[in-house]
């Protein structure tokens, strides 16, 4: 489980939030809400260890993520605003490489199956530069299918996606929660997961 205690974070001189505490247990999902600039992305990036909190601590299964370092990264997956996709590579290569960086070796069949499930049938071997924004986002999201991570940290996962893809993501999240996974995410679009209680964290 993920435990955040008394977290404070600032950008430049500006204090974004302070005294933030929450815990996330297996099978739970939490949405981070707040206006633009309220620190949603900063919170998620702090959870990834990119940003150093001014105060407070983040613990994974009782140990600080600073100490766990790589052991923590093996169990978490982060999807940010940037897709981490190379224009020069095709969808298949992109997925296999990004899965490889996350420590999962993927053979071609598995990768193709994941891409097809994300609705990219027939686009597997096209260079990603000819794909649309939504299709690129799908390539990035295909990582959710092949990852063994327990904690998903998703920053605006639904941007540029059409209705069908949004439904698909909801389904993926429901499956992940059913496997006792954890999700913390931000979104400006409505996202419902059937049969799950959505916890909310408001930053103001």
């Amino acid at each position, binding site marked *: 489980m993920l435990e955040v205690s008394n977290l404070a974070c600032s950008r430049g001189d500006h204090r974004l939030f302070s005294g933030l505490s929450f815990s996330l247990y297996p099978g739970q999902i939490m949405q981070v809400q707040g206006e633009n600039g309220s620190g949603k992305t900063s919170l998620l990036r702090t959870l990834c260890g*990119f940003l150093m909190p001014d105060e407070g601590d983040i613990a994974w299964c009782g140990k600080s993520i600073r100490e766990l370092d790589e052991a923590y990264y093996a169990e978490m*997956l*982060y999807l*940010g605003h940037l897709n981490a996709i190379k224009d020069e*590579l095709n969808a298949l290569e992109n997925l296999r490489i*990004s899965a490889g*960086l996350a*420590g999962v070796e993927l053979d071609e069949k598995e990768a193709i199956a994941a891409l097809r499930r994300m609705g990219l049938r027939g686009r597997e071997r096209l260079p990603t530069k000819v794909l649309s924004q939504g299709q690129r986002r799908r390539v990035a999201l295909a990582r959710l299918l092949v990852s063994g991570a327990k904690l998903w940290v998703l920053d605006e996962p639904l941007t540029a996606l059409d209705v069908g893809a949004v439904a698909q993501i909801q389904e993926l999240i429901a499956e992940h929660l059913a496997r006792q996974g954890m999700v913390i995410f931000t979104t400006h679009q409505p996202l419902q997961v059937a049969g799950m209680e959505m916890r909310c964290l408001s930053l103001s």
Partner: protein
Amino acid sequence: MKKSSLPSLIVLVIRRDLLLAMRRRADVLTTLIFFVMVVSLFPLGVGPEMDMLRKMAAGVLWVAALLSSMLSLGRLFSADYLDGTLEQMMLAPQSLSMLVLGKIAAHWIVSGLPLVLMAPVLGVQFDMPVQSLGVLIVGLLLGTPVLSMIGAIGAALTLGLRGGGVLLSLLVLPLCIPVLIFGTGAVEAVSTGLSAVSHLSLLGALFMLALVSTPWVTAQALRISME
């Protein structure tokens, strides 16, 4: 699906960067062409007297190699930084230093190795004797990876800054001076009939020092720059 080990992850990073370089061949070629051009400009600048050129050859080739390797350093992390791949690398379940080492190795294969291979041809232009050429190549083989490794620190520190390219050279060039001195010194020693072993072993020592320290420092610099 299976978990990947550290060596396979490093191999993955190297293969990925080489694949990307193959798809963007122009970038690789421009560095090499720059190297050839800078070296060819010297005789035009100082005159065609063979004696002088022979004396200058090692220095000219080394300085040109130093400048060309600066040119390609900007690309080392910036593309990965802009499209978010660097974030994913920092979240890899293996040490970031080792991934950085993989990236540096790929960078050297793409931008350092071609210079080393090209150097004998250019050395002949300067009428370098065979023995000097041999020492030059060995020196470059030991020295250019050090340039890539030191340069990686600068590239990581200047990530995403405006005017990053010039700033990068300003930071990195002074740190590369020992490599330049020992590299040219080796050739000079041989051409004056001395042994180049001491110079080359000092270059080797610099290589080892850089190998153990720079990936870690670069990883720290990347973490600072990602904040």
